[in-house]
């Protein structure tokens, strides 16, 4: 291994090593438990530095590639890791579950995600996917005493392995047809033409597999149950990071396959936007509502994929950055406000709490308005970039469906704001709701959402590689 190769996987090394260290501390110095969150957060920040200073290029015989886009997606993953870890601390203490495994699994999952989003070879992608998936399954079941948690994990596991099988089968077919598992080589073979129908089947299978991971309709059935049962701070991570990395792989696969996949993508997009928003409308549980809203958001994201250009990657990156901040912020507040983790998280439980917890309520409201795509929040900028891409590339109808369905979205996001501020106080919180880290994560995410919405210039300059547009 050359020095460059080691440097190129430095973020993953840092994350994995920190995970191992935390496990060892758990075994031999359990008194240090209280510092695990800080330790894991520091490791995430360190991984961020390593990723930021990385030189662009390919390593490991071209299996791993770092470029301007992977660094943005890395940021998405690490931001949601950091916010998820901070939000987890109070929850773990409250539930009496503070243990090293949680942090270790979290970090390893992040490492798997970083590998996956930078891999340019299908089997490497698959191995990374399995690494992170196993960590995700375990984390989903982390609340051992709660039945709903076990159910959540089991559903996620069964569907997840199913999706993995899809992907693996697709890879096999692609290899059979093109003779390679390297995405650039596959892209060349597709461009040369003359491939059999099985190659297309392979692409569809891989796309379907990652559509499971992104919980796109009709592959979404697992996500509401899993979100409802899994630990809230973990769901804040689950709903962003794996979806972001999967979206990048999906884009790469579509790019390599060339040709016209626009109709398929547009179909997935419309189904997700319509079904996700309509189903979110009738939810009473805030986590289920956010699960369906997450489905809808992946639908919006796909609007930029319908006409695939290099700018699609940029638009997706901006969108996912905004989504990472606002969704993680929302889940952080949910974690802090709902003390009894095993029960339902009814929206109506928040009645009148806007005046009891002004900071948390403001953070949640900002996240909701941003998810609804209202200016001046970062969520609006994300939608702007995605819809602009569609409008400019002849997919005006997709953008119109996007804005009309996001109107439905505004309705149920506003319901949270309305419950917080316009309903009488239903009950006092049972505990003290003291969760410094969770509150910090929520307020930070909300502030960033607002700030980047008001001054999006610098971040757009960073993410958008070339001048967008015609």
């Amino acid at each position, binding site marked *: 291994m050359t020095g460059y190769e080691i440097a190129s996987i430095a973020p993953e090394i840092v994350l994995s090593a920190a995970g191992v260290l935390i496990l060892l501390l758990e075994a031999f110095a359990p008194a240090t438990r209280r510092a695990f969150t800080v330790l894991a957060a520091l490791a995430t920040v360190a991984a961020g530095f390593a990723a930021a200073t990385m030189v662009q290029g390919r390593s490991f015989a071209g299996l791993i590639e770092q470029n301007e886009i992977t660094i943005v997606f890395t940021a998405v993953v690490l931001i949601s890791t950091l916010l998820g870890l901070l939000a987890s601390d109070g929850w773990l203490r409250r539930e009496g579950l503070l243990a090293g495994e949680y942090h270790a699994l979290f970090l390893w999952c992040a490492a798997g995600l970083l590998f996956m989003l930078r891999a340019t070879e299908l089997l490497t992608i698959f191995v990374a996917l399995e690494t992170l998936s196993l960590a995700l399954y375990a984390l989903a079941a982390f609340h051992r005493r709660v039945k709903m948690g076990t159910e959540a994990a089991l559903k996620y596991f069964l569907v997840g392995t199913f999706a993995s099988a899809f992907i693996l089968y697709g890879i096999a077919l692609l290899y059979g047809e093109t003779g390679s598992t390297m995405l650039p080589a596959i892209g060349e073979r597709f461009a040369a033409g003359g491939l059999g129908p099985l190659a297309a089947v392979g692409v569809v299978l891989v796309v379907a597999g990652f559509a499971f991971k992104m919980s796109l309709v009709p592959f979404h059935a697992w996500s509401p149950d899993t979100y409802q049962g899994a630990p809230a701070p973990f769901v804040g991570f689950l709903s962003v990071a794996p979806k972001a990395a999967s979206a990048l792989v999906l884009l790469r696969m579509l790019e390599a396959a060339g040709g016209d996949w626009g109709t398929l993508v547009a179909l997935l997009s419309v189904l997700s936007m319509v079904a996700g928003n309509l189903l979110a409308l009738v939810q009473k549980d805030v986590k289920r509502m956010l699960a369906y809203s997450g489905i809808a958001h992946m639908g919006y994201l796909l609007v930029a994929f319908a006409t695939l250009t290099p700018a699609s990657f940029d638009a997706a990156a901006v969108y996912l950055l905004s989504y990472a901040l606002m969704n993680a912020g929302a889940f952080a507040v949910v974690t802090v406000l709902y003390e009894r983790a095993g029960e339902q998280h009814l929206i109506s439980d928040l009645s009148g709490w806007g*005046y009891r917890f002004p900071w948390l309520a403001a953070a949640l409201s900002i996240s909701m*308005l941003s998810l609804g795509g*209202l*200016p*001046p929040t970062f969520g*609006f900028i994300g939608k*702007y970039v995605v*819809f*602009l891409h569609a*409008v*400019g590339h002849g997919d*005006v109808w997709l*953008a*119109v469906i996007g*804005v*009309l369905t*996001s*109107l439905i979205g*505004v*309705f149920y996001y*506003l319901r949270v704001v*309305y419950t917080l*501020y*316009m309903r009488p106080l239903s009950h006092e919180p049972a505990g003290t709701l003291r969760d410094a880290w969770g509150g910090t994560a929520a307020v930070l995410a909300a502030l960033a959402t607002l700030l980047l919405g008001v001054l*999006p*210039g610098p971040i*757009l*300059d960073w993410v*958008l590689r070339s*001048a*967008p*547009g*015609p």
Partner: protein
Amino acid sequence: MSWLELLFGNTLTRLVFFPTVAALPLLFFRRDAVRAIKWYALAVSLVELLFGLVLLATHLRPDGTFAAARDLVGGAAPEWIGRFGIRYQLVMDGIAMPLVVLAVFLLPFVIAGSWRGIETKWKGYAASMLVLTTGTLGALVAWDLFLFYVFWEVMLIPMYLVIGIWGGERRVYAAIKFFLYTMAGSLLMLVAILWLAWTYAETAGAWSFAYEDLMRLDLPLGPQLWLFAAFALAFAVKVPMFPFHTWLPDAHVEAPTGGSVILAGILLKLGTYGFLRFGLPLFPHAAEAAQPLILALALIGILYGALVAWVQVDWKKLVAYSSIAHLGFVMLGLAAFDLVAWEGSLLQMVNHGLSTGALFLLVGMIYDRRHTKQFADFSGLAKPMPWFAFFLVFSTLASVGLPGLNGFVGEFLILAGAYRAVGWWAAAATFGVVLAAVYLLKMLIETLWGPLDREENRSLADLGGREIAILVPLAALMLVIGVAPEPFLKPMRADLGATLETYQERVAAAPAAGATLREAAPAGEGEAGEDEELPRAAEIDDAEDVAVVSAALAPTAPPAAPEAAR
């Protein structure tokens, strides 16, 4: 101008953002320090009014015309999102100015008028009102369509909160209805803005959302129709025009007094202003094609609003439906494409803000006392409350259009101009004036005169000093506009004329076969009306700014924009 001057100088930026900045210290007030919060909010609104008047005074020329105010840094509108050519471009010309002044003028009355009506959560109420002011002022002076859209949406949330938190019985229903109706229209406008900007970028080779740049874009009729439809829907919901009006009565009835005043006084004007500024001039051929439809809907609005107002038994509902009728007149004037009618329309927007604002304040005052707005609960109020009766009659007559008061001037100009341009449409609309007299005078008869048969009404206290102090300036202004409208019409004339001229020039040419870019208007024509005024505009500012300002306003596009495609 430097950045610092932009923030602290006599600029639009200060005018737009001062209320929001001033809302931040509210966080540090104790929740129960209601008196302090009220006085603080009132002080802020008075300072804001002062800023507005100073800005007006410095840009009003000795001959009574108005020199557009622009916020420039280093001679150009500062970049906001450079990637997409989005600029922080604030311009207040003679079209926006009357509404901006109206907005800052009404704010202190809104705060003072809520003194008793708002009983809880004053902190949030004051903050919402101040942020709302930023949103409305920003939307009025934004000359970058992206920036305009952002301000346009920013208005929604504070208004949603004002209706939803401090409103009446069915406040939540009304708030959500208001939000969703308005949002539905504006989201399609967003798609239209994106399409427009993309087409501009394709044609010109560089990004811009600037109003002046997009005005130079000539489009084929097909796209024009779609884009106009999207813009028109957003604005028609806001006005509200006939089939999109159902949110308004609900919002007005449930909103607290201050919310109603702002809603009727300013927010609705954003819709008509949007037509005047963006909808009609940007898509001239589509606007021309849609003229019969707009006229028909405006006429329906006038007659339908009046007829429905006639049968109302609730004070606020009556005023709400009368708003629909009055704004129908404004739309009629706009759709006439006649300078006199346009002057009347713009003046009528201000008039309606004043008279309807006063009416809502009066309803609020009686509601504070009796906690009901039903006509059935009142009669013979003139006896215990002579001052109330005086102001109610005064505002009503202004609203009816009694000669000598402001409403007459606006309606007369609209009808005269419209008759010249579209003939019988205007003649039919005249019935609306008669109907307005019918339903408004009926309201006066039912509430002010007749037997004083209810015990509760006998002991009603007349208006106090605070309430009279609120109403006197409004009434005075109604009288002044009614007696001497020319000083109010003069500042808007040049810009209205230039906009209309550009519109007519573009309509006269056949629609383009494909998207093309017109040359930047040479001096002496169309938009250039402003350019020739420049030296005089500069006289008012510091001498060193002369070069900067005139360089920025030179007829050629700013350096960021590329040369015309042709």
